[in-house]
């Protein structure tokens, strides 16, 4: 068995208005960060997972992300994995 550090990044779908992202962007501009745009606020879910291969780990993570970690009506996700 190998062990992987998994990061699932969940963010609002691009077509969805993200009030949190807008509020954060306005604040960043007010704090002097120039030329900022397209701010989106999402979630990071980080965990360790044991699996026989990277492929198997990725499949299992995709499955749980689709079923549970992200809501496909309003969110999209991406997966980052590194072997420990």
């Amino acid at each position, binding site marked *: 068995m190998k062990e992987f550090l998994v990061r699932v990044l969940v963010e609002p779908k691009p077509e969805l208005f993200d009030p949190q992202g807008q509020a954060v962007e306005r604040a960043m501009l007010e704090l002097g960060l120039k030329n900022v745009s397209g701010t989106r606020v999402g979630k990071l879910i980080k965990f360790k997972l044991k699996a026989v291969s990277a492929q198997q780990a990725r499949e299992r993570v995709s499955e749980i992300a689709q079923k549970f970690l992200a809501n496909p009506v*309003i969110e999209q996700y991406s997966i980052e994995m590194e072997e420990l």
Partner: protein
Amino acid sequence: MRAAVVVFPGSNCDHDTYYVLKDLIGIETDLLWYRETNLNRYDLIVLPGGFSYGDYLRAGAIARFAPAVQALPEYIERSRGIVLGICNGFQILTEAGLLPGALTKNISQRFICKTVKLRVENNATPLTHLFGYGEIIELPIAHGEGRYIAPPEILEKLKRNRQILLTYFGENPNGSVENIAGIMNEDGTVFGLMPHPERNSERIFGTGDGLKIFQGLVQEVLV
């Protein structure tokens, strides 16, 4: 007739809903712990408002895997009775895929707690048949994640099938698409409302409009 109000860790409108069904309307009602899976003895199942599992991840995202919710699809498929989700209960039903669309953060980014005006868009349903078509009623809302979202093809279907029951009237408090405040499934057996009828079921709390929603459901089941 027998009703159940499902109690999740973090439910907080369960006792109010129980009070309306049991004491105001007078039907046999149980508070049903979320680990129960035997739903077949009930004619009406209410998923109450609150903050199940602290709204962690997304409102309703964890409760949808609770044993009582996992038992709902079979209950619905067999047309055993009616399911009503109020506020967090509505969020659980959309997360579970038992109602279309999703509920996400209010446009204002704030938790909103106030009485709103609602328009009855379809009064030929078990939930709304005691109101007139187009009637304006008042119910309280209390939510941070009540903005109803659905893709255009789903919205089209909701309109075509007259599945939109209540819309916000006068002002849209949370940014919901098409001002949607309450919907039902295609078969008219599963209902979801963001407003809280149990919080306006007696005249001392306002117009008492909420009672008619519960009375409507009970009458429908008794027929």
